[in-house]
């Protein structure tokens, strides 16, 4: 339940952003971000909120891993 998923920001409108995660688009809030996030940045997303920036390499590693773990947990949400 405490998994946060790296997602790439593709649109920003004030405190709202659209992210791409495994090819799916999701609207999220930037309200809790401790620093400014820009289009193209990767952020960790949990329950509809971005909580932290991550660099791209760490994000790609984490995405690969989370897919494996999510598969193991049979959670549809994180699969492609």
């Amino acid at each position, binding site marked *: *339940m*405490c*998994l946060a998923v790296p997602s790439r920001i593709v649109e920003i409108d004030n405190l709202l952003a659209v992210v791409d995660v495994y090819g799916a688009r999701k609207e999220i*809030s930037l309200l809790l971000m401790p620093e400014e996030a820009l289009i193209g940045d990767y952020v960790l997303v*949990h329950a509809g909120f971005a909580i932290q920036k991550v660099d791209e390499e760490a994000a790609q590693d984490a995405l690969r*891993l989370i897919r494996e773990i999510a598969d193991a*947990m049979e959670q549809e949400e994180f699969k492609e």
Partner: protein
Amino acid sequence: MIDLIKNLYNKINRPVNLMEVCGTHTVAIFKHGIRSLLPEGLRLLSGPGCPVCVTSIKDIDKAIALSMLDNAILCTFGDMMRVPGAKKSLSEARAEGADIRVVYSPLDCLKIAEENENKKVIFFSAGFETTTPSVAGTIFEAERRQINNFFIYSVNKLVPPALDVLLQSDDVRIDGFIMPGHVSTIIGSKPYDFIASKHSTPCVITGFGADDILSGITMLLKQIAEGRAAVEIQYKSVVTENGNQKAVEFINKYFEPCDSYWRGIGSLPQSGLKLRDEYKQRDAEVVFKIDVPDSSEPKGCQCGLVLRGVKIPSECPLFGKACTPEKPIGACMVSMEGSCAAYYKYNR
């Protein structure tokens, strides 16, 4: 890395119990087959680290009672739906006609509240520090947009106070903690400092990859071998000493600590979060004053011992027989991050 682990373990020269606090680690450890790589006598115990598993029967019953109020819509995260209450689960209550909806984010509740102005929309909120900021952020939005038919029933919990209690009980010796990754993204490493200073127990905040977990274990063994106890961060790409202070401020603006009942463990002082008095008009417990009878843990279920690392799931007499993921008896068998469900899947 395995050789290094073996060397350190030989140097320590006694059995070592490490506890992974977080349910995602429990799954990752199985998935990567980590246990089979470790020397015998170096044990990994699964801790209380899944908010779903520690939600009490009474809290589930209360959520069901809330869903049955006139004109109520109860929203919650998907994993909460199948957790057994005293008589039924939320998903069974929904089948009987209660309006219960699964949301991905608490923000989804605001949309539902706006579309159903004459109904009370109640978010049944379970989660650790990773999740609570998003609930706080949602209250901020509800205030800003003056959505007054949105309420919260909070059973949110705090990780550090629970670990404090685990370390005070003497039914299992914990030599080190593999600390949760994303809880720590929010709170940072400092809130664990007392575990090293007061209990002299090493902590390493660890990522979820096989290499991450093995290097977390190595860092813990190193501390033990050197007779040190400190809080170290292995998962440097997303965890800092101070965490996300903005998210912590959001939590503190809307919530304050309270005693909280952990399923199978009991009431732990100051280990839960309730809405502050200024926001009590959104607190479903205050506004709707529901009460349900006390209930006992299901007969034979050893969740309490499993959550404290005293027993492994297969030592429960019901495991895999009366209790399976299809027909869970205890909450540890419901969420895939629950120890019993993870053992069931990988280790029968």
